[in-house]
């Protein structure tokens, strides 16, 4: 499986590490040359320096042959753009966007992004399952 990860933040790096350990081929895109150096030192040369929300950088990263693109930038808009380019320009099978804004998570789903993950939602669900018996149920 070939995976593109947009964004070399801590989440992007953890996901890359895990995917490579499970046998996937991974390329990352980031426009910060310091982050590029840091990640290339960790994993070997896997980072394309450039704007992950642009066609050019995605092409350089080989998005046309990717099975999955994961957008982990801080802005929901940037993640939307990165996923839509992958989906509609490069015909990537599955796109995943991180979303920090619960109001936008629904919109991103409507815009054809295959998987929208709001980490705060996942964390809240996990909290509720860890302490379910003691928390007040939905009123």
């Amino acid at each position: 499986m070939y995976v593109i990860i947009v964004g070399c933040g801590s989440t992007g790096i953890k996901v890359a590490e895990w995917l490579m350990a499970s046998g996937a081929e991974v390329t990352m895109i980031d426009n910060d040359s310091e982050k590029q150096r840091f990640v290339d030192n960790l994993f070997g040369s896997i980072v394309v320096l450039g704007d992950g929300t642009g066609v050019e950088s995605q092409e350089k990263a080989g998005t046309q042959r990717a099975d999955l693109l994961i957008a982990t930038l801080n802005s929901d808009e940037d993640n939307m753009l990165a996923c839509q380019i992958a989906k509609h320009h490069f015909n990537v099978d599955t796109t995943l966007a991180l979303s920090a804004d619960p109001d936008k998570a629904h919109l991103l789903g409507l815009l054809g992004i295959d998987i929208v993950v709001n980490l705060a939602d996942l964390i809240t669900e996990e909290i509720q399952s860890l302490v379910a018996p003691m928390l007040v149920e939905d009123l």
Partner: protein
Amino acid sequence: MAQTQEDKANPSIQRLKRVAVIGCGSYGSQIAVELSLSGNIVIVIDKNPDSFSVLPSNLVENSRVVTSIGDGTKEASLRKAGVQDVDLFIASTKIPSVNLMSGQLARHLMRIPEVICLVNDSELISLYDGLGIKVINPDALLMNVIRERLD
């Protein structure tokens, strides 16, 4: 649990659980809102008063979410916010060491019954489980979603 003026004024509030959330960033603010909407009283503590602006004003005005400016790693800040009376303590800043410091302060000095820390390091989970603190790894939750969808 200590009785506050509010409890005496409105006995129905005693049914509600009290939760403290450290950090009002993208995780903390959403956790606070969700837990408040499901009927808990939530205290949110952050060093930066501007961070509270993302909280819905109706929840703040009704005191369903109570904000307190302070440092989650300092006992004085926690006591000022009334953390000693909560049933559940959640440390949700972006800095694992802050969350673990703050969580242990809450668990071992203030004797909060349930303490959860967000930590992006799976190796620490077993360590802190043994110390009476529950750890949630947000990155691991994301990887579970990816794994489920791809399998």
